[in-house]
């Protein structure tokens, strides 16, 4: 059925091409915009030509090949699709809160292509999001990097299949509350968190050795060796040690950040990104030297004790110390205006336009290992693009169009009252959800024990 849709679309001249890949690829010429490439400077009155989902040319007075639609963007701004390195949008479940290490679970099994949050993120210019496991466990599940190909009903189409594997780690209050105080097992302290990680990696090393010795002995003549028991959990940890998976670690305090840097150095792990990282500014030189940087909130603080000693200047301090720094949302609401969150680095720390824009484009792309594919407007990259009516760092800007692989998934002029793909037949009257903080807290009040045990697995609190 899906294929039929694409064939129909191709017949209708929508510029999609089904022969090159499974997911739709578009062609388009954006004319006469101010092009903010992020990595190669900004150019006025410039065109961007996209063919079959790839940026083919950036220059002046380009003409559209036959059959390629032209969009007049005079007076408007084009920037790379925004990348959110920390999101839970389009995930049905977030936490497997049953053990301190659950590296075997995968968020790609939980992707819900129907979630309206995908469309709303597109309306905020976000084309790629990092759909993460929650922070209940010290070593949580493997995350999924999503491309917001809204309209598909197949989870596989929403997943960015060519993105490397990443995994969630979590330090501090959340895992110690869930497991230590909730279940009476390690870790209850930040000492225990370190021990859980070191124990896990050491076990993985033994596991790896057992398999290596089995694999080498089984080829020998007359070998009677039996294979070690397979463990997806330990195999995943072994893959981290082998550099096949990027760690994205929920963290707040400088001491715990510093601890994980030391653990990573001891085990030779180089692919490490810190998430939230509210006190990252205190160990910015260490983050810059030994890791792939930090993905932070623009201004969130004081909602729990471990973020009480935060500063909105965090991103600017990290940037000035040479750490790769990105601004993320961790929220279905914030993801709608990451361009504004990035602009806050100009109020708090006076970053340049390119530095601020890099925090929601090329920098998160680096942290997700996809910077060779997306994150800037460069010839040969995937055509994830956003058109704004004003400069994207202006508070008054409004996203106009959003493209993924050259296919337009959001156009403010075509925005309908009801953009849902799926309406529940059992839902006679559509519920009204009030999302204000107070209401959220109220919702928690009756469910404290639930919350303690499952760390918001079924609640909205995910940070």
């Amino acid at each position: 059925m899906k294929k039929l849709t694409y064939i129909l679309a191709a017949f209708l001249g929508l510029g999609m091409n089904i022969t090159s890949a499974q997911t739709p690829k578009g062609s388009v010429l954006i004319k006469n915009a101010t092009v903010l490439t992020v990595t190669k400077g900004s150019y006025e009155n410039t065109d961007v030509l996209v063919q079959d989902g790839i940026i083919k040319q950036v220059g002046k007075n380009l003409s559209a090949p036959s059959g390629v639609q032209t969009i007049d963007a005079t007076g408007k701004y084009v920037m790379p699709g925004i990348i959110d390195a920390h999101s839970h949008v389009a995930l049905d479940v977030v936490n497997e809160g049953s053990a301190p290490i659950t590296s075997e679970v995968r968020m790609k099994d939980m992707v819900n292509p129907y979630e309206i949050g995908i469309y709303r993120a597109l309306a905020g210019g976000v084309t790629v999001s990092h759909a993460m496991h929650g922070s209940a466990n010290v070593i949580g599940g493997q995350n999924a990097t999503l491309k917001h190909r809204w309209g598909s009903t197949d989870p596989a189409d929403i997943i960015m299949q060519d993105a490397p594997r990443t995994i969630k780690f979590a330090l501090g209050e959340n895992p110690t509350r869930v497991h230590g105080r909730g279940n009476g097992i390690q870790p209850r302290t930040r000492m225990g968190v370190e021990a859980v990680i070191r124990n896990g990696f050491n076990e993985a090393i033994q596991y790896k050795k057992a398999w290596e010795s089995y694999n080498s002995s089984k080829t020998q003549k007359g070998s009677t060796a039996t294979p070690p028991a397979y463990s997806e959990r330990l195999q995943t940890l072994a893959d981290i040690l082998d550099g096949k998976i990027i760690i994205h670690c929920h963290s707040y305090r400088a001491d715990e950040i510093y601890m994980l840097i030391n653990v990573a150095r001891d085990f030779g792990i180089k692919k490490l990104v810190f998430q939230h990282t509210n006190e990252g500014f205190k160990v910015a030189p260490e983050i810059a030297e030994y890791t792939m940087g930090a993905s932070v909130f623009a201004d969130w603080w004081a909602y729990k004790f471990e973020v009480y000693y935060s500063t909105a200047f965090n991103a600017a301090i990290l940037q000035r110390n040479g750490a790769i720094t990105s601004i993320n949302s961790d929220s279905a609401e914030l993801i709608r205006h990451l361009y504004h969150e990035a602009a806050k680095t100009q109020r708090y720390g006076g970053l340049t336009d390119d530095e601020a824009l890099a925090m929601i484009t090329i920098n998160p792309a680096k942290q997700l290992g996809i910077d060779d594919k997306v994150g800037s407007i460069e010839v040969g990259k995937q055509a994830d693009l956003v058109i704004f009516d004003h400069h994207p760092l202006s508070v008054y800007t409004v996203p106009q169009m959003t493209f993924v692989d050259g296919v337009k998934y959001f156009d403010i002029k075509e925005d309908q009252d009801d953009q849902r793909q799926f309406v529940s037949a059992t839902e006679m009257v559509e519920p009204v959800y009030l999302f204000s903080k107070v209401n959220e807290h109220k919702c928690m009040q009756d469910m404290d024990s639930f919350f303690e045990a499952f760390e918001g697995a079924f609640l909205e609190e995910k940070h």
Partner: protein
Amino acid sequence: MKRILKTFCVALLAALPLTTMAQIDGEFVKPRSGKFLLQNATVVTITKGTLNNTSVLVENGKIAQVGTNISAGDAEVIDCTGMFIYPGMIDGGTRLGMVEVSSVAETVDYAEIGNVTPNMQALTTINPNSEAIGVTRVSGVTTVLAVPTGGLFPGTAALINLNGYTPDQMFGGFKAVVMNFPSSGRRGRFDRRSDEDVKKDAEKALKDANDIWDNAKSYLDLKNSGAELQYYPEMEALSKVHAKEMPLLIEVNAASDIQNAIKWVEGKDIKVIFTGVAEGWRVAGELAKAKIPVITGPVQELPTRQSDRYDAPYANAGKMAKAGVKVAIKTDEEENVRNLPFHAAFAAAYGMGKEEAWKAVTINPAEIFGIQDQYGSVEAGKRANLIVATGDPFETRSQIMHVFIDGYRIPLSNRHIRLYQEFLERSPGLKAN
């Protein structure tokens, strides 16, 4: 000799504090009052247009003069060439100062136990030294309404200025009794009550509200007739609304609830303000017709329904204003009230326009609170709540250069800024020296 000895002793005394306090470095900058001339700025008065090359004289806590030819006299002159002066922004609904760390219950003082607790005073629990106050006021938000939350009548809200050492010094001259209007909607994704139960619960809650309401009226009638009354602080607080000494601040959000609340208010001779009003755009005409002022927000929020347009919350304030509703904006925040200008700016970008959005955080809340003679614009005679910025303070990149509250010059420092100062260039850096 005697004289020398005396001098010596004086010198010794003067030196004493220095030697005993030798470990204290640096000078602490406190807010200070005085006579200040903010010279040669673009003054955005809000009510009297935008004035170029204009100066503002601050004296005795008030705006003494606004004009082009003000002589400095003994005033401290602050050159504002190329800069913009605006009135301090007013947030029409926050929990600022009532909580320090929201996940630490011991520091959360905005929600008391009980369904009917209108006698709970927000002003009592304001912590003048809350870190969040220092973080907020440097953004140009100078005045906020502190609102208790919880049950049906959770308490009495109070307006505070973000400078002072006691709640009374901070008090901004406005209080209101808060009511959470019984909701016919769901509390969230995890509210699994049946449609019927939701309806039943709402009807019961409204009946309870009416009973309590009538009791308060009886209390007031008895009191006015000179009857001797039992100590009943809840009724005493509620009766102030009946007596029109205080408005009723009704938090109501879903469209059908707003309609019910309009009906509920009809025929009641009281002062009413609606707050929240997330779905106000659905019933904007009815709100305008009822002439009920609205404090709406947060603006940067998710739509209330899955089927709503993505920009419904951004556009809400503008749609109500266009329909003729008097609109103020609130963040509904605690530690991030500093984002009020950005909430207002989003409303501006999505249909409200800059001018109307500015009113929604200055003169409109002042008028709704009945304090427009003191707040909400840059006019001679008003309280000196002023901000000086490098540009439009709504614009993210703009820097706030000076803040005045009640004529006090507020130091542009807080924990966030101090941490920036300490850690931007940490020493030792990567390697130990």
